[in-house]
């Protein structure tokens, strides 16, 4: 056994704390070590060549690289090995950056620890065996969860590449939050106008199967071939017949608050979510439908010329097999009620940014008029940033979009009501983005009064006559460092973005984890921002973190590209870590059989002993640790290999 040991300086990242020379010197003394070198950046081309040369000339059969965490560069060095004709799995990395130099202040301790990790890696690698990656064919189809802008974009990209796409949306129509917006910052083009064409394209594109009003129930995670079961909720309207003429809803007597307008207006029991809805089909809401509640009415049936109404519809279950999944389940707006001191829900003219969007939208509840609850036009409006964001009591993170959104609202106010006084309360103005700062300047130019301060509370109790009938914001203007009272007619709370309600279940269903604040966790914050630890599952849009439209679209593209790359390759390379069984040792006790979460173990009928179904094995090793006769072992993580590492680390 000839082992080459390579210690990386990583500039000063490692060498700044660890005495690399000492580690090299030490490594050279260890058994089986043919050569020990150090280099400034092992991951660099020359660094990798160093290894290649030694493999060729010294005929190394094992390599230890002590550098950053394997999570970072293991693939890099594995490639280096195979390029030089060695087996990539004859590599063992010692993480002396993430686990040593970055976390240890004392150089002496750091060097000692580095030595131990290197010794462990050496004794482990000397027991490692050549392994081959497994190739699993990848199904040429994608499941996109969520029909917001991110989901739509991802679906279209994959479909354009000729892949079969299933787009699942839990609401009756796709479009998500973007469909509710009026204008988009900073360019102020109409949200609907740029979104609807894409929505229509979704139904036009024959590669896309739109599963509206549906939800993913469960999924069995098998790389390359996810088995997904989807429940399609009953519309009680036969989509194939419905023309979307909406005559039914004009006649329908049942009423309910309109979700799309956030309850600011009413809709019928049978309704088309909004004029540009896709699919443009009616849907019946059981709760408000007289037929379902009182078994009367049936007016819709009478008036539907296409006789599309079908009260008998039942939930439908679909089973799909897809090669990749893109999660684009979006966000949920922060519930402003939680900030009791702002009186949302109690004070009639305190509204949220989203409600304001609907108000300014021509198709909205007020047909584009900005009005108070009593119908008057406001003379003064306050906009409050960071509602529910940057606050230890709610969410510590910055929701990123609120500053620009608020500025947009300030502009729209001035546009709709030239005379109106607008106060904009902010903590810090975060206008980072193309054309954003310019937009900020522009809005200031339009005469919006910027107040640097977070309102302490909003009250309808006047303390001086001029406050009668007004909403009073009490805030410290931190520029003047005095507490001021601002009487206004209307307050718009720029609510932050939170992870969707179902994010938790989704994360669980798709076995991907979430960050502390509940958004999906990417595999690597810098280098794999749209991947998850689960191979073949990608994330896009605000489900990964607060994002504005351009970012969501860009990320959706990236996720689509990842999925397409995987499918384009046609197969998925699976790490060769599989359980193996020594049939001469197996006694057929059956302990392992029921442990496997992937049913990769089965009894051989003839002998009664156990066999491993390699294709299904995911390499977790649960059975290996359980096997009482040591008949099972795990390639890449063999008992003797881990033991060797242990002995090395404690040597």
């Amino acid at each position, binding site marked *: 056994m000839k082992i080459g040991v390579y210690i990386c300086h990583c500039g000063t990242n490692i060498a700044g704390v660890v005495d690399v020379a000492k580690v090299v010197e030490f490594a050279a003394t260890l058994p089986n070590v043919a050569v020990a070198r150090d280099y400034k950046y092992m991951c660099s081309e020359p660094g990798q060549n160093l290894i290649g040369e030694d493999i060729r000339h010294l005929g190394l059969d094992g390599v230890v690289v002590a550098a950053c965490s394997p999570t970072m560069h293991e693939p890099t060095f594995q490639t280096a090995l195979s390029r030089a004709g060695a087996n990539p799995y004859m590599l063992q990395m010692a993480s002396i950056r993430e686990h040593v130099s970055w976390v240890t202040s004392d150089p002496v301790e750091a060097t000692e620890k580095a030595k131990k990790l290197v010794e462990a890696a050496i004794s482990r690698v000397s027991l490692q065996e050549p392994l081959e990656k497994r190739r699993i064919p990848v199904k040429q189809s994608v499941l996109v969860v969520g029909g917001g802008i991110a989901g739509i974009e991802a679906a279209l990209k994959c479909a354009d590449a000729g892949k079969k796409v299933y787009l699942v949306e839990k609401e009756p129509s796709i479009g998500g939050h973007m469909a509710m917006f009026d204008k988009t910052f900073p360019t102020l083009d109409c949200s609907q106008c740029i979104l609807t064409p894409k929505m229509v394209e979704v139904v036009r594109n024959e590669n896309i199967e739109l599963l509206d009003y549906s939800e993913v129930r469960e999924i069995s995670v098998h790389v390359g071939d996810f088995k997904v079961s989807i429940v399609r909720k009953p519309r009680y309207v036969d989509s194939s017949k419905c023309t979307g003429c909406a005559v039914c809803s004009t006649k329908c007597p049942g009423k309910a608050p309109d979700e799309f307008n956030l309850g600011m207006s009413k809709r019928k029991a049978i309704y088309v979510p909004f004029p540009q809805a896709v699919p443009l089909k009616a849907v019946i809401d059981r709760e408000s439908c007289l037929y379902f509640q009182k078994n009367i009415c049936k007016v819709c049936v009478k008036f539907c010329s296409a006789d599309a109404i079908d009260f008998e519809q039942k939930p439908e279950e679909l089973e799909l097999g897809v090669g990749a999944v893109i999660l684009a389940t979006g966000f949920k707006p922060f519930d402003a009620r939680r900030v009791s001191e702002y009186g949302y829900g109690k004070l009639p003219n305190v509204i949220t940014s989203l409600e304001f969007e609907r108000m300014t939208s021509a198709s909205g509840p007020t047909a584009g008029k900005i009005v108070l609850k009593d119908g008057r036009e406001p003379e003064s409006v306050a906009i409050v940033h960071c509602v529910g964001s940057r606050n230890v009591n709610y969410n510590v993170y910055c929701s990123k979009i609120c500053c620009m959104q608020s500025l947009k609202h300030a502009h729209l106010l001035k546009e709709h009501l030239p005379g109106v006084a607008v106060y904009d309360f902010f903590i810090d103005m975060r206008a980072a983005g193309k054309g954003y700062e310019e937009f900020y300047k522009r809005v200031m130019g339009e005469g919006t009064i910027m107040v640097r301060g977070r309102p302490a509370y909003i009250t309808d109790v006047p303390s001086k006559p001029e406050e009668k009938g007004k909403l009073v914001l009490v805030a410290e203007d931190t520029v003047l460092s005095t507490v001021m009272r601002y009487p206004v007619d209307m307050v718009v709370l720029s609510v932050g973005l939170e992870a969707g309600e179902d994010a938790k279940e989704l994360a669980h269903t798709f076995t991907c984890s979430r960050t502390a604040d509940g958004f999906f966790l990417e595999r690597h914050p810098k280098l794999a921002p749209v991947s998850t630890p689960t191979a073949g599952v990608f994330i896009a849009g605000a489900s990964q973190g607060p994002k504005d439209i351009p970012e969501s679209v860009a990320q959706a593209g990236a996720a689509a590209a990842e999925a397409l790359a995987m499918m384009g390759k046609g197969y998925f390379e699976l790490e060769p870590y599989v359980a193996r069984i020594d049939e*001469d*040792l*197996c*006694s*057929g*006790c*059956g*302990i392992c*059989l*029921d*442990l496997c979460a992937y049913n990769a173990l089965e009894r051989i009928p003839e002998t*009664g002993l156990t066999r491993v179904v390699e294709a299904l094995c995911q390499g977790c090793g*649960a059975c290996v*640790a*359980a*096997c*009482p*006769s*040591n008949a099972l072992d795990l390639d890449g993580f063999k*008992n003797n290999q881990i033991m060797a590492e242990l002995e090395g680390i404690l040597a």
Partner: protein
Amino acid sequence: MKPERTKPKLAIALGATCSGCDYSLLDLGAGLLDVTDQVEIVYWPTGIDSKLEDLQAVPDRGVDLILFDGAVVNEDNLEMARLCRKKAKMLAAFGSCGAYGGIPGLINSGSPKKILLEVYQGLPTRSDKAEALNFEGEDALPKMLGQAYSLDQVVDVDVYLPGCPPPLKLVAGLLTDVLAGKAIPKGTFYASNRAVCYECKRVKENKSIDAIHRYHEIQPDPTRCLLEQGIVCLGPATRGGCDAVCCTQNQPCRGCMGALPHSEDSGAEMMSALASIMELNNENKEADYTGIFDGLNDPLGTFYTFTLPKSILGRRKVDQS
């Protein structure tokens, strides 16, 4: 006289043992006579009238096969073990005590000193509690070692015949091989390389148990795997070769045949296996496993009945006191 000399020499020596292994030889019945015809027994205190001197008298490596049964817990055992090593061409660890430390090995679960006091002074049936132990002089007790050892922890061992007692067919196997002058590679185990389950005829269906039962608590179904019925059976982690004799008698395996090849610690193996299948049908976020092993008050005694000295930890931590 001539054939006499050619007869292979056999000795059976004892360490810390109940001598059960010796007596089990009598189960050879008439077969034993054949053996005695074919070998010359130079030393077997429990079987024939022989004294230590007889063994000492034999020239070094003069005995073809010595079966040593018993663990090594005191200086006498140690002396005997070393003597046997010196005299034997082939030394066999005979029985679970010799091979793994066995029952006497359980003193490693406490300190020998305490145990001595307990046995010689603490026993409630003794009236003369005050009497001091004497390790000196004529009727001195042999000095205890710090702990119990298996034979191969103190001297080199050639072959192993585990079991409490070793299954006769395996003993016969060894004797025949020796008589046949067959070359027996060092470290050979006269036992199966597969676990007891391989020999156990009970039906194995689905290994997932919700509760552990002590043997007396239930009426086990004589046809189904005992473990599946919640009875702690060490079969899966124990060398076979015994034809699953206990399980056949509706008794759980207690692991006398010791750890399987490549395995250092049958106790840990079994704990892992048992814990893996325990509550297997109840794996979810809300699952609360607290107290699921309350039925198992003494893992040490349960999983290491015969193998403590040879296990990875080998003995209880010595309290610095």
